[in-house]
């Protein structure tokens, strides 16, 4: 039996489901699950975005009633955001954005969509686990929404959930418990998905799809999944201990007067949280690096510069991300030797990251750039990630971090890297794979408006935060201008807030575009609109349930672009990964040879 037949035997073609339940709800098709995650993630992204707007309103106009929306959301206080509302807002904004918006969008949706299609598999390795992963995530989402309706309100201990603020005394009631439980549940969903992605990438690559022929998108998703498998359980452990403290009176995190003499250790939570938390920030950026690495190559019509170098860099960052968590805890009284070690390791991360950057720039250098929508988003990602990365250096350095710790500078820094880069990367991916998702291309004009509004808005907001943070504005304050030394920062905060509202306004272009793509009349969409050679563009838009009628054999890497020989023979500047080259002897190839001999 040939290897191809064996692959096909292992991945049998399943019937296309016809019943509503199996088609849309309990679907084991990775493309349907990707769309489910996409919808869920976008809804939560809108919710988290709305919360961000409320926070920005409070910082620009402290204590003034929120126009229009205030009556709906803060009716009990006449539209004014009270301190109670405010702490809940910034706490749940952070958690919702990370676990219920970026994770499902970037990993849930695009991990699911891209991995099997780009490596030539018919579905995930464990399709039912995949469906279970989505529904577990959805359950956790319901828990989050429920936590807003219980007495004492939702979690309000900051997104980091540090005890004692998140303990029984700091946050009484069910809101905090539900949120921690929801974190645990969504962590379970993430692990289920991550096991699936990793196994699929290891086991189900089509014949000939070697590790070094995988598109960088798959590399990004694979490394992300590996980090998720290994580090989300640490968050689960931290969450279990917190819940035990809250429910059963244990004293893991309780110290001092709260514990009645038999003390635990609140710093323990910070250790556990950041052992998970630091890999998590790379979990949220590695997929975007993958997208960017692919897009700069496709739309510069050039092979990715030193592809292997990019793969090694991403892998190095993945490994290093596991050993730098201490830089979040410089101010906890850590031993100076330990602090310096963490500082050194953290600064070393910038070397592979820098390499990756140089590779992207080299790829574009002398390329024939196409300013398509995904390319714009990729360039935007490079810019915001670059500025976010550079502002990370003073935070990794102990002497500067002691001043900048817990200021708006930190907020600006991690929003540039995690939020803006993830945001732009994800939307670039949405526009790029729209044909694979909904069988149509997005409207280019609207998408470009969306890009410019988002790009300018994101930069305005977070650079504004960097400036005010550098001037000394502490993060998380209800009224940041109550102190004499921050009074003068009202102006810059108002400008920042206007940028935020500008950013929010720009999302209207996406919403229109989205509904047009999903529900509107589907125009004719070319099979391969971007002219690239990866496997997903060899099947129809959207692909059938089984993806590949015949599992392809792969002959080369994903970036066979602008090869003059291919151009001469085939008349196009790209060559598919599964195309036989040179083509069967009969037609153009022989002609050109005979012409040459004349």
């Amino acid at each position, binding site marked *: 039996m040939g290897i191809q037949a064996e692959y096909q*035997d292992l991945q049998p073609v399943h019937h296309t489901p016809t019943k509503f339940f199996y088609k849309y709800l309990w679907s084991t098709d990775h493309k349907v699950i990707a769309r489910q995650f996409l919808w869920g993630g976008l809804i939560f992204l809108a919710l988290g975005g709305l919360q961000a707007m409320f926070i920005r309103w409070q910082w620009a106009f402290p204590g003034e009633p929120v126009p229009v929306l205030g009556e709906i959301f803060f009716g009990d206080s006449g539209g004014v955001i009270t301190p109670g509302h405010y702490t809940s807002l910034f706490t749940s904004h952070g958690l919702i954005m990370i676990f219920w918006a970026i994770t499902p969008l970037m990993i849930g949706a695009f991990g699911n969509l891209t991995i099997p299609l780009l490596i030539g598999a018919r579905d995930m390795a464990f399709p039912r686990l995949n469906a279970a992963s989505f529904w577990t995530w959805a359950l956790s989402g319901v828990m989050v929404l429920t936590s807003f309706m219980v007495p004492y309100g939702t979690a309000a201990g900051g997104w980091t959930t540090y005890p004692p603020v998140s303990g029984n005394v700091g946050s009484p009631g069910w809101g905090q418990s539900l949120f921690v439980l929801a974190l645990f549940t969504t962590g379970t969903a993430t692990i289920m998905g991550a096991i699936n992605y990793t196994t699929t990438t290891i086991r189900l690559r089509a014949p000939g799809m070697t590790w070094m022929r995988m598109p960088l998108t798959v590399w990004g998703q694979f490394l992300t999944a590996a980090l998720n498998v290994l580090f989300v359980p640490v968050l689960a452990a931290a969450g279990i201990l917190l819940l035990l403290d809250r429910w059963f009176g244990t004293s893991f995190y309780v110290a001092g007067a709260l514990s009645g003499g038999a003390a635990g250790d609140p710093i323990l939570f910070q250790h556990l949280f950041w052992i998970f938390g630091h890999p998590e920030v790379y979990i949220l950026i590695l997929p975007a690096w993958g997208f960017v690495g692919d897009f700069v190559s496709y739309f510069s019509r050039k092979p990715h510069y030193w592809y292997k170098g990019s793969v090694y860099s991403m892998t190095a960052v993945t490994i290093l991300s596991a050993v730098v968590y201490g830089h979040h805890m410089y101010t906890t009284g850590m031993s100076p030797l330990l602090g310096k070690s963490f500082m050194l390791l953290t600064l070393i991360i910038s070397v592979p990251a820098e390499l990756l950057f140089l590779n992207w720039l080299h790829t574009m250098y002398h390329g024939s750039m196409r300013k398509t929508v995904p390319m714009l988003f990729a360039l935007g990602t490079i810019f915001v990630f670059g500025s976010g990365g550079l502002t990370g250096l003073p935070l990794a350095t102990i002497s500067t971090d002691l001043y900048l710790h817990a200021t708006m500078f930190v907020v600006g820094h991690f929003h540039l890297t995690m939020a803006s880069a993830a945001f732009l990367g994800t939307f670039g991916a949405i526009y790029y794979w729209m044909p694979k998702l909904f069988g149509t291309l997005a409207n280019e004009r609207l998408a470009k408006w969306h890009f410019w509004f988002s790009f300018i808005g994101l930069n305005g907001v977070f650079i504004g935060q960097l400036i005010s943070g550098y001037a000394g504005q502490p993060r998380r304050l209800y009224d940041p201008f109550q102190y004499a030394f921050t009074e003068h920062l009202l102006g810059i905060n108002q400008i920042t807030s206007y940028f935020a509202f500008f950013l929010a306004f720009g999302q209207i272009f996406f919403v229109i575009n989205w509904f047009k793509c999903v529900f509107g009349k589907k125009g004719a969409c070319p099979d391969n609109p971007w002219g690239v050679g990866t496997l997903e563009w060899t099947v129809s838009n959207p692909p059938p349930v089984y993806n590949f009628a015949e599992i392809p054999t792969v002959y080369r890497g994903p970036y066979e672009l602008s090869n003059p020989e291919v151009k001469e023979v085939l008349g196009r500047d790209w060559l598919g990964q599964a195309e036989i080259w040179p083509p069967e002897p009969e037609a153009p190839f022989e002609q050109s040879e005979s012409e040459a001999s004349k």
Partner: protein
Amino acid sequence: MTDGDEQPSMGTAVAQKSHILSPQAERSAHATGKVGMILFLASWAMMFGALFYSYGILRARAPMWPPSGVPEAPLVVPAIITVMIIASSVMLEQGRKALTAGNLHLFQRMLIGAVVLGVLFLTLQSQVWMDLWTAGLRIDTAGRFGSIFYFLTIFHAIHVVVGLCILSWMLRTVPRLDTPIARYARAQYAAWFWHFVSIVWLIIFPLVYVY
């Protein structure tokens, strides 16, 4: 487009519920399952790793360990149950070998032996908890020591219960599977989980009872 049209036309087999894999594909599926199982156990190992790390931090930052006034933990009974859980893992491994050789009967007997040892483990462990509890090691008064002691042992015991359920289920389901590879695969996944639980105990035992 009707459903018939959506199926590929080039003679690829369309899976039925009773799709029978070729031996190669079945081995391949087994390998995929193994990768998935390894990742799952790696994930779980990180969770336990985090808990041991917590133990280390709590202990290293405690002024005194164990704190004064807590009853001394017994050593003999925990040592006995340690031997028991190792023995159950060894039996399971013998059973797995028997299954490879095609001896289903011996496999079942070994599996029953492992389950019995697991149940004994739980019984004696509960005895240890009750003794300590009556001697005054309470969650609410013994602080971090009591918290981490009860948590590690109870959390492990929950895994033992889950492991016992899986093993009992194997007793029923493995003989009913059609092919030797499928049987072997199923038994192997279950055995791996049980070994994992044993290994975790081998770390917990010295941490909370000996050292």
